[in-house]
């Protein structure tokens, strides 16, 4: 996909924001009328994100999102979550998706007044490749070369076709200024501050108090036009209930974290507070250790998948604010979703499956037996996520109906991670029987990453936490990774969904919606990016500047 966007609207021309129906006069008009009345938005996050440099932010969400307020990437997600040209005016690829040619937008300045050039782009790619740092280095794996041609053209050559290169790399990597970073030899050790927090993004981080607050000021010379919000203060809370109290007491204006489902209606009912809600690509699922009995038996896994009532979980735990999980992994909102795999609850079928496979309750205590004794398992959840705990309880209730006893064990997060994913390396095996698990949005957002979840080869399936292995699945998954033709790729993903639904490497239960609360009297230009939520520069730019 390629496209160009007019970049001349750099000086903010007043434009109406989306019809929000607020009681306030139209915000940008106010800004124009009384220029000394800046729009200040106070946002809440839970847990600090450190100094918000490419090497020092903490979490994928909202850390990366906040980071990207200061930086720009070559491409930018639009409301649908699809990458669109941004710093790069245009993005073109060859047929087998190995050569990507980009044209840099003109007149982009860093916040210290230096011009952003193709050299900065080249520097950025090389720097991230050389100075290992998880996320961006991984993005750039497979990049063979980065070359510049003249002032505006950059050519990136990959060693293999990568259909998602725009999504995972171009829209993800912040372009950093060479004149600052070339002097930083050891970014892990380097401490950053507002002097070195230099990017081309719409905001400049001017103030940071660890674990307390961030203050961003708008960059009036932003190449897409001055942002609609002049100042953004991000307050760090220790737990989830703090922001909820603070938005009610009018101490903050927006919560940069998903609010829990029961809060949606409650907060929406309050006057200036509104909710922005939409599908997100996070997942809630049941993992089991597929390498051990009885989960090595496909019948057991299928029975479990049939026995869980996904709708009940969506209704009870998420109060409807979630999408029922697809047994084939892919979110129904995705274009490549295969409706054929839709889940049906079938307790009788599940029981029959188990009976057939020889798992019977021989001693009449209501619990079936298998070679290793009663089918009685421990299901791990992490105590910090109460919704997951409830899911576990409900699943336990549901599995009781098919003679499988589940004891829910809630443990502290690191303990839970260590059991399910020891050392974050699947080579270390697994120390659990069953667990409620979930992946963050990027895993789902890029559909072809499903290979990482199910491939039996640990190099490819490095997120295959359940130890699943199926040659048929492997074959399609590996083909998918390098398939250049979107149509073929869609076809493969469709097949893969069927195989996954049958093979049950995990039981996908739901995709929770993202819901964000904000005070519409202060600012209501929030834009919900499918799969990512509202925390993005898009929300803070004028509507006309958005892709």
């Amino acid at each position, binding site marked *: 996909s390629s496209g160009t966007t007019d970049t001349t609207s750099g000086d903010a021309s007043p434009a109406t924001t989306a019809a929000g129906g607020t009681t306030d006069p139209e915000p940008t008009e106010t800004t124009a009328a009384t220029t000394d009345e800046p729009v200040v938005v106070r946002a809440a996050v839970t847990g600090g994100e450190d100094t918000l440099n490419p090497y020092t932010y903490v979490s994928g969400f909202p850390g990366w999102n906040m980071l990207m307020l200061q930086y720009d990437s070559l491409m930018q997600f639009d409301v649908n979550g699809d990458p669109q040209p941004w710093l790069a005016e245009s993005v073109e690829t060859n047929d087998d998706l190995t050569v990507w040619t980009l044209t840099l937008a003109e007149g982009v300045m860093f916040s210290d007044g230096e011009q952003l050039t193709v050299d900065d782009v080249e520097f950025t790619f090389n720097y991230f490749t050389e100075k290992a740092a998880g996320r961006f280095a991984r993005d750039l794996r497979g990049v063979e070369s980065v070359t510049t041609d003249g002032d505006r053209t950059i050519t990136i050559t990959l060693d293999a076709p990568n259909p998602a290169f725009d999504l995972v790399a171009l829209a993800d990597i912040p372009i950093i200024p060479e004149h600052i970073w070339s002097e930083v030899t050891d970014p892990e050790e380097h401490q950053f501050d507002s002097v070195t927090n230099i990017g081309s993004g719409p905001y400049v981080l001017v103030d940071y108090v660890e674990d307390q607050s961030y203050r961003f000021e708008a960059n009036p010379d932003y190449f897409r036009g001055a942002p609609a919000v002049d100042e953004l203060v991000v307050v760090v809370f220790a737990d*989830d*209930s703090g922001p*909820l*109290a603070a938005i*009610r007491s009018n101490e903050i204006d927006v919560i940069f974290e998903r609010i*829990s489902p*029961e*809060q949606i209606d*409650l907060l929406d009912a309050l006057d200036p507070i509104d909710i922005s809600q939409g599908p997100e690509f996070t997942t809630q699922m049941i993992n089991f250790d597929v390498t051990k009995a009885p989960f090595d038996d496909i019948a057991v896994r299928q029975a479990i998948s049939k026995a869980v009532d996904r709708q009940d979980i969506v209704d*009870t*735990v998420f*109060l409807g604010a979630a999408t029922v999980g697809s047994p084939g992994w892919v979110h129904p909102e995705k274009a490549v979703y295969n409706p054929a795999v839709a889940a049906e609850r079938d307790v009788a079928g599940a029981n029959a499956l188990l009976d057939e496979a020889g798992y019977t309750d021989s001693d009449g205590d209501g619990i079936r037996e298998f070679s290793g004794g009663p089918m009685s398992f421990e299901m791990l959840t992490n*105590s*910090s996520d*109460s919704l997951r*705990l*409830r899911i576990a*309880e*409900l699943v336990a*209730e549901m599995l009781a109906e098919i003679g499988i006893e589940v004891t*829910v*064990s*809630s*443990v*502290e997060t690191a*303990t839970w991670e260590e059991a399910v994913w020891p050392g974050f390396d699947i080579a270390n095996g697994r120390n659990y029987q069953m667990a409620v698990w979930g992946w963050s949005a990027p895993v789902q957002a890029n559909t072809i990453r499903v290979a990482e979840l199910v491939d039996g080869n640990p190099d490819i399936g490095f997120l295959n936490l359940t130890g699943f292995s199926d040659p048929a699945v492997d074959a399609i998954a590996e083909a998918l990774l390098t398939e250049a033709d979107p149509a073929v790729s869609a076809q493969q993903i469709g097949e893969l969904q069927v195989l996954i639904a049958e093979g049950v490497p995990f039981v996908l239960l739901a995709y929770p919606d993202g819901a964000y609360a904000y005070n519409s009297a202060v600012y209501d230009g929030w834009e919900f990016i499918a799969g990512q939520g509202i925390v993005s520069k898009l929300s803070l730019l004028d509507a006309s500047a958005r892709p």
Partner: protein
Amino acid sequence: MTPPAIPANRPRRLLPRSLADRLGWFGAIIVGFLILMAVFAPRLAPYDPSERVARPFLPPSSEHLLGTNDVGQDLLSELIFGARVSLTVGIVAAVVAMLIGTTVGVIAGYYPKRLGSVLMRFVDVVLILPFLPLLIVLAAYLGRSLTNTIIVIGVLIWAAPARIIRSQVLSLRSREYVLASRSMGAKDRWVILRHILPRTGLLATGSFVRAISGAILLEAALSFLGLGDPIQKSWGSILFWAQSRGAFLTPAWKWWVLPPGLAIMAASLGFALIAFAVEERINPKL
């Protein structure tokens, strides 16, 4: 050294103690009430607390006097059944704490020189242990269950009773009846079992009841932090759910937050009052 005029048959029991007694009885009534509630929970509770009986987040109604929780379980039933877990954890954890505390306290008090001072240094260390990681470590090695919550709490709170009992034993071991026993050739075992332990018992009762009071609070705090077992229906875990589902900030605090908090307070208060009365009785000076 030898004031001969030790007042003969001065009636100690005649001192007025009505206030402590009244408070103690008040505490006993509260505790009695809560224990009855725990014992007869299945009869008193209108529903099975672990069954989803209505829609989630219902406000109080005639069917559900305290409404329902986030998955539609009856809050009143949870509250009533919560007494079982909270009181059990409190009492059993206190028993664990007293077993450790008494053993250490008696040994440290009876052998105050080497062994005793080593033990007391150990007690000092326990008192300054960072309890959060300790808890996680213990939970990790013991697994998460009610039994382990009990052990963890017991391990965390034994040091205070150990100190009190040690100082009591220190004074007991120089009582003349202990000296008398030793002068007859009694071995340490005999003295400890026949003289020290029974006399410490009374004091330990006070510490024990106080420990229950503390253990109930600790269980609530642990559950609230998500370090207990939120699946167990205890008062602390009701609050954990109330907190994690935002009930503190909504009108639901009146039926979801207040009752379990008050129940914790009542239980802790009840035991604390009994402890106060017991201790007041033991200390003849007061």
